[in-house]
């Protein structure tokens, strides 16, 4: 039923779009001339299916229609950016209006930029691995096969950047904590450590709200310098674990414990490719001795990667990443005997291969995460074809495998899915 509605609505939209298409550029230009507003966007239909039965979730992993509209206006001394979406989600049976961007960018000083409002923020050197980028992620979107754009969730923040010969300084202030969209069983089944088994729509845990202005704010700082082609940076973050890494026994709620992160990164050319190195110390401030079994311990994280062109229009990259839990003995001693223990080190390797064909209109890509310590992996193959300057089709999959049900990727095994999409950009 919903599928029929989706197809009908889609047909209608594309028909309308087809009619409008011939005059679209003229219309956009007229709009710009009249209001000085640059208008762009897309309409997209995207469907995904589980490739096996999941006792806790629907077979359909993704079924949605999305309209994105982006408007920008330059005032000379500053500029507005707006990006809104209308989403009709047939998996959750929801219609939603979302704001991805809503910000004002200006330069109060010659060497200073300020961006205020809702914005997507990224820094750090990892490829789909994040150490010092503690801006919110949307893991649900990532795992069900939405466009890569949606892995980054927007922040409601003020970003102040100061540019100086010695170093550039970026300070991000988030007045009210912006968590990542974590896996809670709504769309994806996962290992629930409290139940000691895989859970999904049958078991939702309450997650605490961190919404008090001032008390629940976040700060992120970066000092960056480009030194003879090498990009060097130092980072500091003060806020909370972005996913609920704690449990409050009194309320039975999942909580976002306090977290500080200190890190550094470097990126530059090496052996005809690009090499990167990044490290961070995650100070879990509500469990500094590691003896609270209900709150994640502090940890070190390291990452190193190398990317280069293997042949014409064919690029490959490798990354090694490790999470090293601190106070591991305290963790082992304090943890309830029944639940499976995490390893002291979680090693992870990633591989990315990208091949461009047919004047770069056909993109074959493959990304794999493999953890030798967890003995699990997550594969992301994708094919994208640009039919013309407006139409794009895409198909891909999210494959999870693991020896155990409780490891990072292994827990999502029943969510293994394939998806396809059709997008019309204007």
């Amino acid at each position: 039923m919903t599928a029929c509605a989706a197809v009908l609505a889609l047909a209608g939209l594309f028909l309308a779009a087809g009619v409008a298409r011939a005059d679209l550029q003229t219309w956009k230009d007229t709009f710009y001339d009249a209001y000085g507003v640059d208008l762009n966007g897309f309409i997209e239909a995207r469907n995904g299916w589980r490739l096996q039965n999941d006792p806790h979730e629907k077979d359909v992993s993704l079924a949605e229609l999305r309209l994105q509209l982006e408007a920008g206006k330059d005032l000379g001394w500053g500029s507005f950016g707006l990006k809104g979406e209308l989403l009709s989600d047939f998996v959750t049976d929801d219609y939603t209006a979302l704001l991805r961007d809503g910000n004002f960018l200006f330069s109060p000083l010659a060497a200073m930029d300020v961006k205020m409002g809702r914005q997507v923020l990224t820094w750090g050197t990892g490829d789909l691995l994040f150490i010092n980028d503690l801006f919110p992620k949307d893991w649900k979107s990532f795992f069900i096969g939405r466009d890569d754009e949606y892995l980054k969730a927007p922040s409601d923040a003020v970003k102040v950047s100061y540019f100086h010969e010695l170093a550039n300084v970026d300070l991000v202030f988030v007045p009210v904590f912006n968590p990542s969209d974590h896996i809670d069983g709504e769309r994806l089944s996962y290992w629930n450590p409290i139940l000691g088994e895989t859970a999904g729509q049958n078991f939702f845990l309450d997650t605490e709200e961190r919404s008090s202005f001032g008390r629940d704010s976040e700060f992120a700082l970066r000092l960056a310098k480009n030194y003879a082609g090498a990009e060097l940076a130092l980072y500091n973050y003060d806020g909370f674990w972005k996913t609920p890494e704690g449990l409050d026994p009194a309320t039975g709620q999942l909580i976002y414990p306090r977290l500080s992160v200190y890190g550094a990164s470097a990126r530059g050319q090496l052996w005809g490719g690009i090499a990167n190195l990044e490290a961070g110390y995650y100070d879990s401030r509500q469990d500094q001795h590691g003896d609270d079994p209900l709150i994640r311990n502090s940890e070190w994280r390291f990452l190193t990667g190398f990317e280069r062109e293997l042949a014409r229009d064919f690029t490959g990259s490798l990354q090694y990443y490790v999470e090293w839990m601190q106070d591991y003995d305290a963790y082992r001693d304090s943890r309830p005997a029944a639940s499976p223990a995490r390893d002291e080190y979680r090693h992870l390797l990633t591989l990315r291969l990208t091949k461009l064909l047919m004047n770069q209109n056909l993109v074959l890509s493959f990304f794999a995460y493999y953890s030798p310590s967890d003995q699990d992996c997550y594969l992301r193959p994708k094919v994208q074809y640009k039919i013309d300057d407006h139409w794009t089709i895409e198909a891909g999959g999210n494959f999870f495998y693991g020896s155990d049900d409780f490891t990072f990727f292994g827990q999502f095994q029943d969510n293994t899915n394939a998806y396809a999409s059709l997008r019309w950009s204007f």
Partner: protein
Amino acid sequence: MKKTFSALSLATLFLTTATCVLAAPNVEEIVNKANNAAYYAGKDGKALVDMTITDSQGRTRNREFVILRRDDKDGGNQEFYVFFRKPSDIRKTVFLVHKYTDKDDDRWMYLPDLDLVKRIAASDKRTSFMGSHFFYEDVSGRGINEDKHELLEDGDKFYVLKNTPKDPVSVEFSFYRVWIDKKTFLPMKAEYANKADKPYRVVEALAVEDIQGHPTVTKSRVQDFTSGGETVSEFSNISYDLGLDASIFSERYLRKPPKEVYR
């Protein structure tokens, strides 16, 4: 100021013409002058580029971008800032290049939807520029020391040069011939020969205009005989010596495009 400048460049033009009359310049001189005429006009420059890519079946695609360039000195290191306007799915994507004459370029790509500054490996410069039939090297220039140059012909209108790569493994051609206009020193045509010494790729200037005293290619085309496709680039809103600040070619302006790229 402007007047002095154009008077100066006129004088230069006159002088170079005079030299031509006296004696044919040696090959290295021709190559240097052609390189400067094609890639180093003014201290900096700006152009709006409209690219039409046609595949072997006649299907076309469009790219529209603004390109900003700044030179350290003629024949020296350069910086390029390329801001995409069309198609809409790559709008606001920025491509930044720091080109060095003595080592590999530094390249970055900014993806606005993810706010991601991606560093790109620059090993192979003879790959397609944004899906067109132009190569990165056609846009930013091939290092003049990478080929051996021979003067094949000293004709009425053109110098014809044969260029043979010093490192044949690194490129797909065995040599290429270039027709250099004797007046402007602009390379008007480059014909690339494959390993069987047959031409398979031609890059040509289709129109040249005088802009601020610099003869400038305003329309160019590359034809690929192997695939049967071609790309035509038209350049408009061209200006030189804007006084572009070096800071424009840095991370700051990836996130906040400079006023020069807006319409």
